[in-house]
């Protein structure tokens, strides 16, 4: 059983992180294409059309894998997380279906017209198609993050013992979930940075090689402006404002800071240290006074609750959850007297905590003190991975801020191309947004553990009744396919990036000019 849980978690983590290599670029690049094409329509300068088509070509190579890997995400909720799907499909499924109808159709229909409509659509029609791709993809992200936000902070839903699942009580609460909202802004802005960094880095490559300069400079300037706006939004509208609501979000915050004991407000921020989970303390901590309180609560008087206090309340709720579980068994076996129902209603909010025990005591109600302690210890995520992943994310984010500030400053002073060193920095800085994004998702989802749905459904309860051999089969197959596809996509990306706008066959750019010269000399 534990096998299945670990394997299914591994598969989900692997496929989700792989999927999110491609999504940010789709999200970010789509808007930049819309800006470039708008410039083309407004100024009528061909170079902007070439930019739209060339970056659009790279966009297409990436888009194909984004779509492909997205299919896996949709399938595996059903294949690998069947009980999860049954238990929360009533709420979690809705945003996914709405995403399909409202956003994914729009994005996918117009992406076809974007690629193949150049000589079939009028200029304005084509521009509209491009904008709709950008709008569609970001709207798609909105619905997915509403679904994801609900996993972190499940508002607007209630458990129904007759259907044995969570059911929606308020759609408005679901979409206005504060966690979903900050998550959307933070994730999407971060993705725009990835799109901008992609264009910035590859344009820098042309600038370093000294070819197609006017094309590269224009691309660089657009990327610099777009990326600066993106990185400032990402940092300022960071996720932390969403950490005040919900117990799991609080645990995440405390784990990120490795804050074991609740400090007096305003709490100090642990810049660096080594979290020690067994002893429940942080070794070699270097602290900055007041900083955590200011960042996390944006106040001087609100406390940031420490892990030990959180676990104390978890233990309480686990005991309550045992009662809830016992009553649920009575209800399910047919005793639906008013008394039982009323008693269950009173404690059902802690049912999820009772389910945490399932891993250690299958009958839950007869759990020993030691088993309760075990479940309590596991009611928070591993602190060290959270602590370091968060710092990697922030570090990469700050480096990106530096790059975009300077890039913007250079383009404002019309000095793009002057500093070889800086352009090399831009080129080799290309992985930074992806490092930040992947660590960010790690913090968000690993930090949610041990829950699949915060305080409602433990991860170990969510899996399907399949055999570990089946999951092993799918992990190995998916990993093989993904590896091959990654090699092919990187090969194509490099090929077309090296070729640059010459790949458009317009005759205007570097390699074609070179060919023409050779032909002339003969």
């Amino acid at each position, binding site marked *: 059983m534990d096998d299945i849980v670990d394997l299914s978690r591994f598969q989900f983590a692997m496929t989700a992180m792989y999927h999110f290599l491609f999504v940010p670029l789709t999200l970010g690049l789509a808007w930049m294409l819309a800006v470039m094409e708008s410039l083309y329509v407004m100024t009528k300068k061909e170079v902007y059309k070439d930019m739209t088509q060339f970056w659009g070509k790279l966009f297409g190579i990436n888009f194909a894998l984004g779509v*492909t890997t997205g299919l*896996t995400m949709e399938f595996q*909720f059903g294949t690998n997380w069947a009980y999860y799907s049954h238990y929360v499909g009533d709420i979690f499924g809705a945003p996914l279906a709405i995403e399909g109808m409202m956003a994914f*159709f729009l994005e996918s229909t117009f992406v076809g017209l974007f690629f193949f409509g150049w000589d079939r659509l009028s200029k304005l029609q084509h521009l509209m198609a491009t904008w709709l791709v950008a709008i569609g993809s970001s709207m798609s992200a909105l619905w997915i993050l509403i679904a994801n936000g609900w996993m972190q902070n499940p508002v607007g839903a209630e458990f129904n013992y007759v259907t044995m699942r969570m059911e929606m009580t308020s759609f408005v609460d679901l979409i206005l979930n504060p966690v979903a909202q900050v998550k959307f802004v933070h994730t999407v802005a971060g993705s725009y940075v990835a799109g901008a960094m992609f264009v910035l880095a590859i344009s820098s490559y042309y600038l370093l090689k000294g070819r197609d300069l006017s094309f590269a400079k224009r691309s660089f300037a657009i990327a610099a402006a777009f990326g600066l706006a993106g990185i400032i939004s990402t940092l300022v509208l960071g996720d932390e404002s969403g950490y005040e609501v919900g117990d799991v979000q609080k645990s995440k915050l405390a784990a990120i800071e490795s804050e074991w004991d609740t400090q007096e407000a305003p709490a100090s921020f642990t810049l660096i240290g080594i979290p020690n989970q067994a002893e429940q303390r942080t070794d070699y901590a270097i602290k900055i006074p007041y900083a955590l309180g200011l960042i996390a609560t944006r106040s001087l008087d609100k406390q940031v609750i420490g892990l030990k206090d959180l676990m104390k309340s978890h233990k309480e709720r686990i005991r309550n959850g045992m009662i809830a579980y016992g009553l649920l068994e009575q209800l399910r076996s047919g005793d639906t007297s008013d008394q039982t129902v009323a008693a269950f209603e009173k404690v059902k909010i802690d049912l999820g905590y009772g389910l945490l025990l399932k891993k250690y005591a299958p009958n839950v109600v007869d759990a020993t003190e030691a088993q309760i302690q075990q479940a309590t210890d596991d009611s928070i995520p591993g602190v060290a991975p959270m602590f370091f992943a968060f710092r990697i994310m922030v570090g990469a984010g700050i480096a990106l801020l530096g790059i975009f500030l300077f890039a913007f400053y250079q383009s404002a002073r019309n000095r793009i191309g002057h500093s070889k060193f800086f352009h090399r920095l831009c080129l080799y800085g290309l992985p930074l947004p992806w490092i930040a994004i992947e660590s960010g998702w790690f913090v968000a989802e690993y930090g949610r553990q041990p829950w699949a749905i915060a305080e409602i459904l433990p991860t170990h309860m969510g899996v399907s009744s399949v055999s570990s051999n089946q999951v092993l089969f799918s992990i190995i197959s998916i990993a093989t396919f993904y590896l091959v596809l990654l090699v092919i996509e990187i090969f194509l990306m490099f090929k077309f990036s090296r070729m640059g706008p010459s790949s458009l066959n317009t005759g205007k750019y570097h390699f074609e000019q070179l060919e023409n010269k050779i032909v002339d000399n003969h």
Partner: protein
Amino acid sequence: MFEYETLRMIWWVLISVLLIGFVITDGFDMGVGTLLPFITKKDEERRIMLRTIAPHWEGNQVWLVTGAAAIFAAWPSVYATAFSGFYVAMMLTLFALFFRPVGLEYRNKIEDPRWRYSWDWAIFAGSTIPPIVFGVAFANLLEGVPYVLNEFLQSQYKGGFLDLFNPFSLLVGVFSLVLFVLQGSTWLQMKTEGDLRARARRITMVLGPVATILFAIAGLWVAYGLNGYVLTSIGDLSGPSNPFLKTVELQAGGWLLNYEKYPVTMLAPLLGLLFPLLAALASKYNRCGWAFFTTSLMQVAVLSTFAVSTFPFILSSSIDPNISFTVWDATSSELTLNIMSITAAIFLPIILLYTSWGYFKMFGRIGKEFMAKSQQSSY
């Protein structure tokens, strides 16, 4: 807005509509993908074939994606039980589906014949495996699926991957592939010229009658060879979704009862038999538009036949028929269905509008001259 009972019917219809949207639109691009390695050896002609579907397949695939998401949202337990039960089959479909976006996007990026030849087979696999698996899966839905539910509504599938395959399910798998290929062949008739069009025409003329025969055999098999699931009692049709409150019986010819009750539904199988023949006939007289139109209606008729036959069952358990999921006890809550109905009422018409606009803008045949002229946008 609507009564719970009505909403449940609405979602049974809407999910059928989404799946019909899938077999009509993705039907033709998958059909083209299956034909790709066989209908011509010339790269130029293959590029023409792919170019006809290139602007549309991404949008088409969303019918499948949204269909699956709608099943997740409207029938969560069905989604959970079917996807985990058919684990290996689902994974194979998924792997096959990997090949399409990358194949279609990457094939023409490099001019090396080996590169293109390999992608052609990848696109073939991606277009051929899913229709077969869908056919096999639908056949299994008719035969009943060996799963159980415990008191916490955790489902467990008791069969193995190979149990999915038996003579009946293989027949339906082949039939399903024939339908997709037919849909692809009439699309090619409509969108290409010359040799390619002539070959596509011959394919429709051969496969049209084949589809009718296969459909007839499958129909007779369902009527005389299979037991159907029949509802003998059910609780409140507007009650909470609880699959334990009804009784179900297996009866010979049970899948035909709806036709006796509502004779007008006989139209679905009759038209399902007729349309493939009409498509062959239309092809014989070179009416490409009519050919495509009739194969599209054929898809509607065949899926409707399935829907009418199995109503109100969605997923039936062969181990414990009483816990089968029906239209009334497998759905999401009333609020969720309401919200999604409003969304569908607003967005489905809009989707149809801009999708049609896209097809309208891309209207017309694609031949060698077209390909030569539009180097730029053929990516």
